[in-house]
């Protein structure tokens, strides 16, 4: 029995250590963002909100935030459309080579990001597509599509389509049956797929790195540039805002879907 207790003790100690370790680099930026001094010394000196005020003045930061939000939202929306159509075909239709197509559709996930970025850079040049916005948008559809495919496929294959027929037998029209029966059932898969896709796009560095130009930079690229050129607590302020936004989104998703259900798909 004592050996069992020992095992449980080790497991709990490990979990507490893991959580402390994981949160450490995230939590430290918060006090640093309120410091009065220009360097991020620890413990921070004084209290001020000056670095939050400076966010507006940093060249290109708000523009990069807007660009990243745009690209992430549009590429996720495109992926939801393409991915859902494809998932419906794979689950409901007679598709020759369905297993191979499924593997193909999620395979960008297994590819090192840098390789994808380089391959796209080269192709865009050969084709003559020099517009950074369009290159980024197309690349991010490739990044987001596997996340949507995985979750929508999983929730569609768990759905019993006989329920739609049952609703129709009970007097529902076909579109109404889809809307009232199918949609609520696969919505959690949709939401979690879209969230993962949005985060993957919003955070992406290794693919975007090759596709941005001087005037069109996504947020991670701009942040890393700024970190290399003039590291000051403004970055901590931006990071704190980003962490706050993430926590809000996670709480919303937990209310809508349930976090554990999301992570299990």
């Amino acid at each position: 029995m004592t050996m069992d207790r020992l095992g449980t003790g080790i497991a709990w100690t490990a979990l507490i250590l893991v959580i402390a370790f994981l949160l450490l680099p995230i939590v430290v930026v918060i006090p640093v963002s309120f410091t009065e001094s220009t360097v991020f010394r620890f413990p921070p000196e004084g209290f001020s909100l000056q670095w939050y005020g400076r966010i507006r003045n940093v060249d290109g930061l708000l523009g990069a935030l807007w660009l990243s939000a745009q690209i992430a939202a549009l590429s996720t929306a495109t992926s939801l459309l393409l991915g859902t159509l494809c998932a419906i075909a794979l689950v409901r239709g007679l598709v020759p080579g369905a297993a191979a197509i499924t593997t193909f559709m999620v395979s960008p996930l297994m590819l090192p990001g840098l390789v994808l970025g380089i391959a796209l850079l080269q192709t865009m040049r050969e084709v003559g597509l020099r517009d950074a916005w369009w290159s980024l948008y197309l690349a991010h559809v490739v990044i987001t599509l596997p996340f949507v495919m995985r979750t929508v496929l999983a929730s569609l294959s768990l759905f019993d389509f006989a329920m739609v027929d049952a609703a129709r037998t009970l007097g529902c029209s076909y579109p109404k049956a889809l809307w009232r029966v199918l949609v609520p059932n696969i919505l959690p898969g949709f939401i979690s797929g879209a969230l993962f896709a949005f985060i993957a796009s919003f955070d992406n560095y290794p693919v975007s790195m090759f596709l941005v130009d001087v005037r069109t930079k996504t947020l991670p690229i701009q942040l890393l540039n700024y970190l290399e050129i003039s590291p000051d607590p403004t970055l901590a302020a931006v990071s704190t805002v980003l962490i706050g936004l993430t926590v809000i989104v996670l709480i919303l998703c937990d209310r809508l879907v349930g976090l554990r259900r999301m992570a299990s798909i």
Partner: protein
Amino acid sequence: MSATLAAPAAALPPLRRRLDPMALLALPGVAFLSVVFLLPLLLLLWSSIRGEGGFTVNGYVRVLGDAYYIGVIGNSLQLGLITTAGAFILGYPAAFALARARGYAQVVLFALVFLPLTVSIIVKSFGWGIVLRRDGILNWLMLNVGLIERPVRMIFTEGALYAGMINVFLPFMVLPIYSVVRMIDPRYGDAAATLGASPWYRFTRVTLPLTLPGVVAGASLVFSLAVAAYVTPSLLMGDRYMTMSMVMAKAFLNLRDWQLGGAMAAVLLAVAAMVVVGASLMQRRLARHGGAA
């Protein structure tokens, strides 16, 4: 006999009419990925073997015949292995505690493991820098506790790099193991105990084999992410520890040496493919064993 077998095939309508209209819905997505994903990849591989006078393996000779680039490949593999091992040692017992937690505690603990996954890697690397600086939180803590007398240089050391990599990729180890442990019926352990098995025997013969699918999933995920990592090594170590990704980025962005970058990309791609294939073979074997038991 052969006639009866052949008959149904002959009776089938021609292919065009057999094609299910529902299958056409897959077309836009497949077409998109073929043009924007598969085609660029093939072009990249093509450019790694394209020289001035036609076909050449020059890029591969330069990468695989040069001690410097062999060292770079070694660095990447070593970084991947150490990150995977570290994440496993920390993550395996933690996943057990997470799976055995109950009620509200489990939701909170789960959220705390999950949250770092959604925080930008730039923010995490930046925070890791603050932790490790000479005037950072770790030195401050150790000074105050009396462990050290003078601040220690930690940033830009290999130890800091490994710690940072484990920090970034640890959730990818914990979550797959957690989801497997959650499915294990605790009565297996009880049954083994009733039959007189010692705790150690129970762990090595019952629990550990049952969790192997999660371990394989987590380890292959962490290894393939770590071997290809770019942001964390370049922020925490810079040029002093070149990885395959860093060589590729340099070849394409600074040197404009597409042959070298393409060959390096092909090597990285081969490593990634081997991990994926190896992991799926192992999963299949584990599934067969599970079926036989």
